[in-house]
């Protein structure tokens, strides 16, 4: 029996979803569990799996946003009567949230309208005098466009045509002319003030050939829901915050050692250790853990640290809640679980909201320094970079140390330079002497 495929409700808070990337067209058959299209929400992208077997009889919404549980397509047997469903769908789809039509594509350029020309060989509408002038000017009058009554060719038309023909003829050296003809290059296309020489023709042809070979194309597709959100949040953040960037090099010898020591017991990452350290230090520097609400500054007695996770099509920031109350093991477990959920599009809304500070690590790509953008409504974000063995001077001796840059971006509206600097200095202290965490 034919039935609707409807917009799935992927989370408790989901009200609508965006349809993208259809794998099937009308008339295709699908099997149970086969992926038909993608559903995107502001949080996740999920592949829509077929709930049964059959033929895609009708695609009701090919692209755009649809409310949850509203029909998207009709699936059924090849010869089934689906008119009842279609009628029902018409009512339902009559008012989709967003227009389900294709995004406006630029109209294909219309071929330039050729000027109306009297057919060659036909009777030319022109006075005898005009024809005589044309003959004197050695002009093929049939090529002239008439502007007189009923398209008649006037003397003025002929004179203008002659003038145009004169200027249209580019000056070209004889050799260049021969080469242009041989290569099929229209010298009129060559943009040069002076006389067109051989080199100009060859350069034009070379460029034309290169363009053909390079075959430049641009591809336009609508932003995914996640991309739209990233775009609007990032630009809004840049407009809102008065950002200052701070960079500090830290020695990671002790942190590395700590990780090694714990290895046999628990697989702890640098991110885990840094979240642990941050959850301590942020309480010591409440302004970096604050939010601006109107003209009030809100500080907290807790720390919720967002940890940015890269996804194939964007990024998401799950939040380690109340990290200040979690030990390193718990933090590690939590981050692993959240990252796994993020990669599987399984994060719930409350798992990606409520952060008070964000940590972003792109050290795995070898980055040495960057200027992260604050995740609003927070006031600071810490960027983690790669660790590089660096010659350092210790007590007058050059020693190789595994050094790493901390890249802090802080909002100067609440975080002054001295505060930020002291915050970073304290981070450095704890990173270099993690034993202090025990105190």
């Amino acid at each position, binding site marked *: 029996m034919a039935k609707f495929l409807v917009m799935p409700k992927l989370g408790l808070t989901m009200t609508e979803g965006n349809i993208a990337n259809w794998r099937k067209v009308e008339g295709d058959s699908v099997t149970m569990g086969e992926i038909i299209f993608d559903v995107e929400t502001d949080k996740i992208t999920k592949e829509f799996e077929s709930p049964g077997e059959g033929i895609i009889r009708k695609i009701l919404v090919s692209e755009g946003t649809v409310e949850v549980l509203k029909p998207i397509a009709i699936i059924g047997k090849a010869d089934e009567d689906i008119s009842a469903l279609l009628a029902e769908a018409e009512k339902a789809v009559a008012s989709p949230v967003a227009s389900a039509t294709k995004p406006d594509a630029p109209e294909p350029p219309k071929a330039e309208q050729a000027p109306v020309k009297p057919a060659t060989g036909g009777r030319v509408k022109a006075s005898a005098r005009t024809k005589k002038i044309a003959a004197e000017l050695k002009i093929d009058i049939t090529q002239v466009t008439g502007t007189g009554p009923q398209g008649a060719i006037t003397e003025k038309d002929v004179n203008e045509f002659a003038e145009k023909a004169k200027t249209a003829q580019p000056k070209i*050296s*004889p*050799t*260049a002319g*021969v*080469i242009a003809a*041989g290569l099929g290059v229209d010298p009129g296309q060559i943009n040069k003030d002076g006389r067109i*020489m*051989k080199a100009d023709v060859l350069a034009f042809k070379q460029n034309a050939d290169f363009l053909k070979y390079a075959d430049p194309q641009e591809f336009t597709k609508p932003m995914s829901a996640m991309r739209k959100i990233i775009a609007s949040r990032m630009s809004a953040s840049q407009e809102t915050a008065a950002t200052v960037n701070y960079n500090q090099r830290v020695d990671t010898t002790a942190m590395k050692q700590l990780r090694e020591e714990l290895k046999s017991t628990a697989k702890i990452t640098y991110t885990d250790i840094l979240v642990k350290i941050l959850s301590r230090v942020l309480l010591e520097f409440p302004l970096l853990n604050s939010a601006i609400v109107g003209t009030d500054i809100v500080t907290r007695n807790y720390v919720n640290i967002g940890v940015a996770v890269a996804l194939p099509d964007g990024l998401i920031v799950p939040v380690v809640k109340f990290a200040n109350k979690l030990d390193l093991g718990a933090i590690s477990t939590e981050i692993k679980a959240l990252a796994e959920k993020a990669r599987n599009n399984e994060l719930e809304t409350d798992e990606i909201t409520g952060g008070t500070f964000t940590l972003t690590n792109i050290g795995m790509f070898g980055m040495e320094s960057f200027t992260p953008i604050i995740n609003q409504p927070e006031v600071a974000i810490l960027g983690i970079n790669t660790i590089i063995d660096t010659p350092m001077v210790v007590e007058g001796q050059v020693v190789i140390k595994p050094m790493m840059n901390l890249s802090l971006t802080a909002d100067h509206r609440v975080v002054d330079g001295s505060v930020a600097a002291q915050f970073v200095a304290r981070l450095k202290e704890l990173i270099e002497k993690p034993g202090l965490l025990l105190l």
Partner: protein
Amino acid sequence: MKIVIIGGGPGGYVAAIRAAHLGAEVTLIENKFLGGTCLNVGCIPTKVLLHTTELLDVLKNDAKELGITVSGYEADWKTLQKRKTKIIKKLVGGVKALLKNNTITQIMGTGVFLNDHQIKVTYNNNQDEISKDEEVIDFDFAIIATGSKPVIPPIPGSVHPDVITSDAALSLEAVPESLCIIGGGVIGCEFATIYNAFGCKVTIIEMLPDIVATMDRDIVKPLKDKLIKDGVEIFTRTKVESIKEGPDGLAVTTSSQAGEKIVTAQKVLLSVGRKPELSTLELEKAGIKTERGAIKVNQKMQTNKPHIYAVGDCNGGVMLAHVASAQGIFAVETIVGIRSQIDFKTIPYCVYTKPELAGVGLTEAEAREAGYDVKVGNFPMAVNGKAMIIGETTGLVKYVTDAATGEILGLHMAGPRATDLIVEGALAIRLEATVAELKSTIHAHPTVGESLMEAAHAVNGEAIHLMR
């Protein structure tokens, strides 16, 4: 804008005049003679001698046929030397007057760079009207145009009062009985022609496979034939091992595949080439770089110091007066911001021998080397009416063209007034003319120049005045 130009030859003085046209404040420093090598010991004096040589050749070989019986004429070297000096004096005076007319400050002295914005000039002693000895001149731009000097090859015995270069060869007191010329290039062949006509026994020794190696083989052949016919001995693929004083003059020991041979001559002329004259400049103080003994310049004639230019022989390019002048004008125009250009394809090469040789653009061999599908049009002087009238039927006109487009790639001539007629080829190349334009341009009759039109027809085997 203060422009200092060092060197008053065809590169420097032409640049000075052009700079004055364009409103610059110009100082020209020359340490020897205005007009440089070209006017004083190069192009001009050699051509004065060669003109008389040409007339002597007519008297000797053609007069009778032309209906003139001449008896008791004499080749008078001393008078000719005076004429040469007179012409040089007049031309140098002309240059001086032109510079003055253009309110260019002329300094006879030697310029030395102090740094990249100052030159110190030490005045020549004979400048009695100037009381000071030296002066420091500040400049915004400088153009170096110090020219070149003959190369003295490292041959044992090459330093000897009777081993001379072109400078001395122009003004020998008397014509020697015999002359051995080392280097059969343009200069060597011109001096061979001069001294041979004045009754001197001339021998040319050339290391390369042929004389005048830079020009098209087909036009060099008539010259070689004529030199040999006139009694000049030519040894090609021959190396000079040493020069020694012998009982009958200088003994020049040569070696070739045929073995060793000794050429005895009263004088030996070294004409193996020229090299940039940079010895007095102290370029390093201005931080100007050189490469293989020449000032390094880019396509705009700029040295590594963008406000200092080097034009003419001193930059080690094509060592010809007309190239130096073109570069001088180009450098000045570049300085003042005019977008000009030099088309180096249009440089004519001329040899003022009999027959005269001239070439512009690619030789047939060069065109083939460059990968063109070459088509050649030859027309012999022997069938040109005017050439017959003036009794100079030796030589030919040769167009080298691109078969694909008809483009003129080169023109090469041997024959009467070839050096004057070559300009047609230069212009054709400059304007990218094809064979069609040269064929359809009406050439005056009867002229030697007609042969150029005929050679253009001959490219497609359609010369009117040649048997098919």
